[in-house]
């Protein structure tokens, strides 16, 4: 038994998950369109909020720009998670398990697809935002960091989606988690800065919700420029979720593949 090299397996599986995403334009389009739509509507609808005392010195449009980037990763996570769950449900996973495939290769392959989608989304949203008139204070290097953080966030959510898929093995279970993720995004500082959240319970949730820090990390690059603390917290939270979710997913994977 020589088995194939880990890298070859990852490449083969990554290609598959990327190819199947690209071949489902409906998925791709909704992953791009819905966040942009929500962004446009929210940014205009809440424009007046920038008149509140204590609001950062920037148009609401700039403030809201973190929203599509974070929301997009949610789509990626649900798509990747339900793809994996579908594989388990319909037996494709069994077929792969009969090869000398290493479970970690399947996970990495799938997450490569997530990263690819996250990259596309990051770039498209950045272009759209600039077109809408968002100004990025940290300039072009900042834009690269924004895309990098977006990809890391996508990876974090993708890892959670994978963990859910492997644990439950059910497409329905993964898809019914969608509202939960959605709730988690909204119960953060996504719509208003934390100091302007009046209700104590909401501010508390927003403060303990790691998504607030992902949002504030991206937002700092847009509004304030280079803010080491916000970036550290943003990248730190994203990396922590990535590590937790992927090690959780890998542990569940080991119990599924004998």
């Amino acid at each position, binding site marked *: 038994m020589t088995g194939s090299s880990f890298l070859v397996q990852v490449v083969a599986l990554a290609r598959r998950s990327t190819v199947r995403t690209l071949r489902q334009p409906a998925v791709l389009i909704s992953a791009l369109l819905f966040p942009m739509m929500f962004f446009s509507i929210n940014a*205009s*609808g809440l424009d007046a909020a920038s*008149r509140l005392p204590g609001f950062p010195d920037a148009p609401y449009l700039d403030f809201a720009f973190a929203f599509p980037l974070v929301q997009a990763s949610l789509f990626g996570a649900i798509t990747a998670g339900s793809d994996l769950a579908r594989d388990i449900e319909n037996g494709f996973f069994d077929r792969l398990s009969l090869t000398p495939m290493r479970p970690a290769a399947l996970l990495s392959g799938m997450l490569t697809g997530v990263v690819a989608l996250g990259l596309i989304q990051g770039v498209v949203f950045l272009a759209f935002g600039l077109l809408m008139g968002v100004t990025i204070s940290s300039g072009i290097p900042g834009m690269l960091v924004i895309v990098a953080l977006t990809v890391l966030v996508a990876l974090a959510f993708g890892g959670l989606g994978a963990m859910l898929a492997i644990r439950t093995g059910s497409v329905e279970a993964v898809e019914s988690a969608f509202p939960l993720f959605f709730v988690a995004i909204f119960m953060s500082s996504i*719509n208003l800065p934390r100091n302007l959240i009046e209700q104590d319970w909401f501010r508390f949730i927003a403060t303990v919700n790691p998504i607030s820090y992902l949002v504030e990390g991206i937002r700092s690059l847009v509004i304030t420029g280079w803010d080491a603390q916000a970036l550290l917290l943003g990248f730190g939270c994203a990396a922590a979720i990535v590590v937790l979710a992927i090690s959780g997913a890998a542990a569940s994977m080991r119990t599924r593949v004998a």
Partner: protein
Amino acid sequence: MGSFFQVAWAVAGRQTYKYFTNPAFLAPALFPLFFFVAFAGGLTRVGDIPGFNYAAGYIAFQYVWALLQAVTMGGAFTGFSIASDFENGFARRLMLAASNRYGIILGYTLASIVRAFMTGALVTVLALVTGMPITGGFDFFGLIALAVLANIAATLFGAGIAMLLRTQQAGPVIRTPIFLVLFLAPVFVPLNLLTGWIETVARLNPFTAILDASRGFLAGDPQNVPQAFAISAALILILSFWAVFGLRQAEKAG
């Protein structure tokens, strides 16, 4: 004419019975509940923006939108179940059995109103629990009347599309426009605080008048009431034709 109501009654009875056997019928309330918590909980300071003049407070301001969302989504979900009835063949049996097929539309609509009352009640209870102040002088019946009309309009819209497409794929085709209509309105702040393209769109959106009048009822300060009822009636009339058109297409397809 007798058979028209008989058919409607039978269809409504079956649909309503289905609700009680499956708690998923409350699903249309899920997103409204959640948006209510997110917006009424997180955005209260928005009520302090200069020029934001709504007597009943920000929670009430958001409650009305969530309520209308819950009832219109209830209508959309009725569309989903019509589509799935067509997909699994039940609707064909219905079409064969019904002496007056327009009764089918009325039946689904009646069932949808029943559902709207339950999802609406759910949102209302949550709003009261989370501390929506009840001030005197509000017109609750006016609010309910507009909510029912909004539900009927959404149901007819959904029914038309469901009967036109006759597959589960009707889902997003029904949901997306309703979502857009709901969001392209003064959701977060009153119309006078909106600027730019969203202001233009919101002014053109017929739902804006219904939303404003409903908020007026809750604050005990009714505004543009005749206008809101006229728009609702016109919507229902147009969408009735739309639903009948869908039914005719379904009949043609057999």
